[in-house]
């Protein structure tokens, strides 16, 4: 079968990827960006290959981004979401994957609410598996596009101070960013209310080089990059937070905090944003915000990854 990769078969997280492999994907992303800048935004690289997007959890931007990426590489793309598919009839994930295999899928992109689901898929699928976000575990393509965006603007990753602020505990983005950023030599500070982080050593045992903070104003000192995470409003209902008002005061990127940041400090957000909760519109649309660039780069990164896995 042609799909056998000369490198890795799947990308489920960045934890198993070497710095060199990550760099290679970022290089490829440059070329893909070039393709997307052309008048005809399509190359025949994956012609005849079938990519299936399996989205068991709502997602607009990631799904569209993957669809556009696959189409730009001329692959056949099929997308389905849990709603209306056989999953609702009680079909197991394994059955679904075997069915896709039998239907001739070469690659699957999976988004799932359960951490670890992509590993299960990978065990029952002969082609490539790309994780598009699984529970709280990982979101490697988001981390890759974050890395790409930072490097595009600041020319490097190594030595940068990156602050990730918000609901770290429930964030797959934070975990994948941690692997990617630390492996490429950034200094990462996690900043969150204590209930949305857990004990510090749970994090530093796996990522010994990071810092932990519960005070955003201190954490932002000298930051080169601020990544703001989405706060799910359910967290407040689950009793993890006293109130959204207090959360915003302590952890949101407000106009006042924006003032104190350096003009060069990148502002990032994986989306979708709760404006007025974790980030103010003033910060989201500031000249140093790269939130839209993240979305744009997402397509190129996913093209690079599809290409890289197709070998």
């Amino acid at each position, binding site marked *: 079968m042609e799909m056998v990769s000369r490198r890795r078969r799947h990308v489920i997280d960045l*934890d198993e990827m070497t710095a060199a492999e990550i760099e290679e994907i970022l290089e490829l992303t440059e070329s893909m960006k070039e393709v997307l800048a052309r008048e005809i935004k399509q190359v025949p690289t994956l012609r005849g290959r079938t990519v299936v997007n399996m989205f068991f959890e709502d997602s607009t931007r990631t799904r569209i981004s993957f669809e556009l990426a696959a189409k730009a590489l001329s692959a056949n793309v099929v997308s389905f979401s849990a709603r209306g598919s056989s999953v609702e009839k009680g079909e197991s994930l394994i059955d679904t994957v075997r069915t896709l295999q039998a239907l001739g899928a070469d690659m699957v992109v999976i988004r799932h609410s359960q*951490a670890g*689901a992509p590993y*299960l898929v990978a065990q029952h699928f002969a082609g490539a598996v790309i994780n598009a976000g699984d*529970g709280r575990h*990982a979101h490697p393509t988001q981390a890759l596009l974050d890395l790409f965006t930072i490097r595009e603007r600041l020319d490097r990753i190594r030595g940068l101070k990156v602050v990730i602020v918000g609901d770290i505990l429930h964030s797959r983005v934070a975990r994948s960013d941690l692997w990617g950023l630390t492996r490429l*030599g950034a200094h990462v500070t996690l900043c969150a209310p204590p209930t949305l982080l*857990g004990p510090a050593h749970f994090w530093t045992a796996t990522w010994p080089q990071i810092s932990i903070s519960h005070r955003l104003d201190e954490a932002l000192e000298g930051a080169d990059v601020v990544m703001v995470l989405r706060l799910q409003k359910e967290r407040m209902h689950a009793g993890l937070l006293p109130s959204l008002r207090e959360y915003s005061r302590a952890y949101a990127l407000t106009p006042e905090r924006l003032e104190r940041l350096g003009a060069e400090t990148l502002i990032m957000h994986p989306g979708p944003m709760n404006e007025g909760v974790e980030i103010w519109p003033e910060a989201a649309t500031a000249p140093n915000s790269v939130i839209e660039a993240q979305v744009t780069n997402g397509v190129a990164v996913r093209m690079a990854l599809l290409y890289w896995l197709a070998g």
Partner: protein
Amino acid sequence: MRYIIKHGSIIDPARRVATVGDIVICDGVVEQVSELADLHAETESIGDDIEIINARGAVIAPGFTDLHTHLREPGEEQKETIATGTLAAARGGFTTVCAMPTTRPTPDTAAVVRHVQALARREGHVRVDVIGALTQGCAGKALADMIELSEAGCIAFSDGGHPVADAGLMRQAMTYAAALGIPVMTHCEEPGLTRGWAMHEGIVSTRLGLAGFPAAAEEAMLARDIALAELTGVHLHVCNVSTAGAVALLRTARARGVRITAEVTPHHLTLTDRWVLGKLVPHETVAVPDGPPPAPSSSRKGRRSAPPEQLIPSWLDPALLEPYDTSTRVSPPLRTQTDVDALVAGLRDGTIDAIATGHAPQARVDKECEYGLAAPGISGLETALALVLTLVHRGEMDLVNLVAKLTEGPAQVLGRSPATLHPGARADIVIFQPDQAWRVDASQFASRGRNTPLHGQHLKGQVMLTMAAGEIVFRRDHFGRSGEPRRATSRLDGFLD
């Protein structure tokens, strides 16, 4: 039928001694135990109804008692039946299993207890004792018919893996049990701390993004139950202790004279939450920010290439598993090495009385799914001995003490006579080779539950023969058969297969 088991190392757990000798079994009871000095007398009396079992190099011990077995029948026969579960027990060297009440229906009335007892008499390969439900339906809302259950022969009360969240109800249940003189077996879990849990809360759960079952959830509930045991005077038996903090709580409670006993499972004594990572490399070898690329993981590669037989003690390698392998999901969850060390210490010093398998067979569909959706449980009867022998091979526990934890310990918890092979005792006997290396193949289990994280692992120590009430209920290959004709037959068997 009369059996003479010859030349084995006989372990007498009640007296904590081992001697080499012979055992004569007749009509279901031990007739004679002779030490090496007087071995030569009886050989000429061999007739047709006498079989000599050659146990040279093997250990002979009283059959094991498992305090904590989920037989699943009635109600979940796709996972296990009394027939398959007790055969698995026999293969694991267990001659008595205590059936957990979380079946459908639960034994919360005498009628269900009698049904299980009748099934066990008809289809069981080993003795089955029934643990009655503590509350109706094990639902933690109202007391079961506890007097009736004790009259029907229940040996303990429990709600299985369901914690009784209502402290007031637990107090009433313990008060009843205390008056009946029957132990209450508890699974300690404060449900307010374990919502949506998938594994132990700690470093690994944080990395994998799985919701945690913190050690504190077990310890908080244990502290409550200890206080209630003191209040009511009940005999509290703590199931599947899994944390260092719980061991410390037990130790101080025992020192105060609280009537409390405890058990630990083979998997909690040997495996950690690191097993959920499977083949993913743990942090320390990869999380190097600036340094050179990670060195080739020397320990793992080295272990892989070495022939397993030469490995001491066992080939326990979590890297054989995929990440998030649902076979590692168990309640309470696999904890950390600190907890494992404390459990072993507690077992050694007597804080923990018994090893119990917590055998929890699951059907494939309950495990072949996402980690957080998988049913917890490990099918443990058939690997229990080999897994705990790891402690002996590592020098962390001596063999006689270990055997006591599978025999004498559970007997004491149940208030039974000491586990001893003496004339007149019921002939419940296990013979095992402590050094026999083997590879776990879950597809060969007698249990319907193939859910084990040990599939493919190399373990040392194998049960060769199990005798329940004088009947051979399990025999590996042709163990113990001597004489040329039989040997020739067995070789031929091999060719004809």
